[in-house]
């Protein structure tokens, strides 16, 4: 019966797709051909910029007035148990991945992250991965570079710089400004989220976003950004800020979504979703940027021994985002207070191989 129904759906699909395609009225007009040429020139320009960037990661470490800017190393030691989660091991969800690897995230260079069972959260099988891992046969993607600047005391405010295209919305209201002498656009909302966007002299699009920064400070920061032969440097990082290249030229070989772990509480209504993204996420999809752009407020929280981003959403949900190794991890928490968020994050630890194997053995299917 199922096969017959599938065949009916398939037949209907053939009809629906064919009819929809027939309604697309498009011709290879001279205008379309010119659009291709414009894109070709744009690509050539970006390649030039990419060559300028070089292959090595660039760390924006500049002396600004009296402040010494230092590199923040996001590398975390695998196997380190931090927070309060060492009294036992949480159940862990099945790591959903496709295309490669087995059931051990370490095979993909990902952390094995688990939550303390004392938190009372029960693991559940996550949904199908929305994105799977597969090679991208076209390596000629746009090049962007993302830099994240946090204040030296690891607290908000925070500055997020994205070179190249950006899909983050400009905070409203937006109005024209000049960055140096270059026309641009500035926007800020009452919640403290602001942005400035302009095109640099070499044609590169520049986007600077910030939490909790005054307009004048943000513009001064933007004006201080220049491109050097080796890449970009922030020459005028606000006092007390540190900067690091968060990601660079990552639109290369692989897609990024890697795994999902889900937990929820039996009675308290808390739901926790832990997603791990491998580094090669195209930067124009940078999850961190989306986290920031959609949040209502931002703060930091201690994650595995380091201060990391905590975003709060208008509906009361939270997202913690951090970079274990070369991945980006996001912990989405619903139905929790800030104190509970702190507890949950403190109950997070990185499991070693033996621990992970035991989890898989004791909880088949999880």
């Amino acid at each position, binding site marked *: 019966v199922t096969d017959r129904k599938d065949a009916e759906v398939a037949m209907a*699909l053939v009809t629906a797709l064919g009819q929809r*395609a027939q309604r697309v009225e498009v011709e290879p007009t001279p205008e379309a051909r010119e659009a291709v*040429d414009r*894109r070709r020139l744009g690509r050539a320009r970006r390649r030039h910029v990419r060559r300028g960037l070089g292959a090595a990661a660039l760390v924006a470490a500049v002396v600004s007035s009296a402040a010494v800017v230092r590199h923040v190393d996001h590398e975390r030691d695998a196997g380190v148990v931090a927070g309060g989660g060492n009294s036992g091991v949480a159940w862990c969800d099945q790591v959903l991945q496709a295309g490669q690897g087995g059931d051990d995230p370490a095979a993909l260079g990902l952390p094995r992250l688990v939550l303390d069972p004392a938190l009372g959260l029960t693991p559940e099988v996550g949904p199908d991965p929305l994105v799977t891992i597969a090679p991208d046969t*076209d390596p000629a993607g746009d090049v962007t570079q993302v830099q994240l600047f946090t204040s030296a005391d690891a607290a908000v405010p925070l500055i997020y710089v994205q070179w190249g295209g950006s899909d983050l919305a400009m905070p409203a209201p937006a109005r024209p400004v000049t960055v140096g002498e270059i026309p641009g656009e500035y926007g800020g909302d009452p919640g403290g989220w602001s942005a400035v966007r302009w095109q640099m002299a070499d044609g590169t699009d520049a986007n600077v976003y910030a939490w909790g920064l005054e307009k004048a400070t943000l513009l001064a920061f933007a004006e201080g950004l220049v491109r050097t032969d080796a890449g970009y440097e922030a020459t005028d990082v606000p006092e007390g800020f540190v900067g690091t290249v968060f990601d660079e030229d990552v639109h290369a070989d692989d897609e990024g979504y890697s795994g999902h772990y889900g937990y929820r509480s039996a009675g308290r209504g808390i739901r926790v979703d832990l997603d791990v993204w491998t580094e090669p996420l195209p930067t124009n999809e940078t999850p961190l940027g989306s986290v920031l752009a959609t949040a209502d407020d931002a703060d930091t929280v201690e994650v595995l021994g380091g201060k990391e981003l905590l975003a709060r*959403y208008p509906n009361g949900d939270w997202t913690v985002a951090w970079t274990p190794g070369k991945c980006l991890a996001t912990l989405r928490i619903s139905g929790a207070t800030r104190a509970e968020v702190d507890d949950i994050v403190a109950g997070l630890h990185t499991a070693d191989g033996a621990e992970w194997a035991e989890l898989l053995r004791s909880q088949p299917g999880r």
Partner: protein
Amino acid sequence: VRAREGALDDGGTVGSVARNDVPSVEPPAAAPAADDVDVVSFDQLFAREYGPMVRLATLLLGNEAEAEEVVQEAFAVVHERWARLSRPGGYLRGCVVNRARDLLRRRAVVQRLRRTHAIEPPEPADLGVDHLFDALAILPPKRRIAVVLRYYEGRTEAEIAELLGVRPGTVKSMVHRALAQLREVIEP
């Protein structure tokens, strides 16, 4: 399903019937493709494939505006590498599919991070006249691509697998699961 077998002519005539493991239906004439056809010049390829590629991208993405952008960018890539391409039509198609997949994935990522835990199937009442086409929006990116390549272009599982970088068995599974998902929407 009538599957592609060897070259397609300019009119998009589908080749002979091949054995398949997905439900047997017969798609209409597939979109033309220049995968295995000699192309003399870039402009010739553009004239012949622009329309079919936009139609394919529209089915993959759901709207024509994004489809044209994807196709124009794909042609720009092909132009850059023209001298090195032995099968520019096939390369073009690969670029279109990959870029469409990037866009679909981007939508999924943003949706996921914007607190939408999962893409909920649309209510039947929300579906328009193209209800089955609209329902494709519930599918994860690769499933949608597999379904379009299968039932619009009549591609074989092996061809789809090559385009998506997965095993043919995975394509079979993706198509079956996609059909099951779609059935839930159109037959609640």
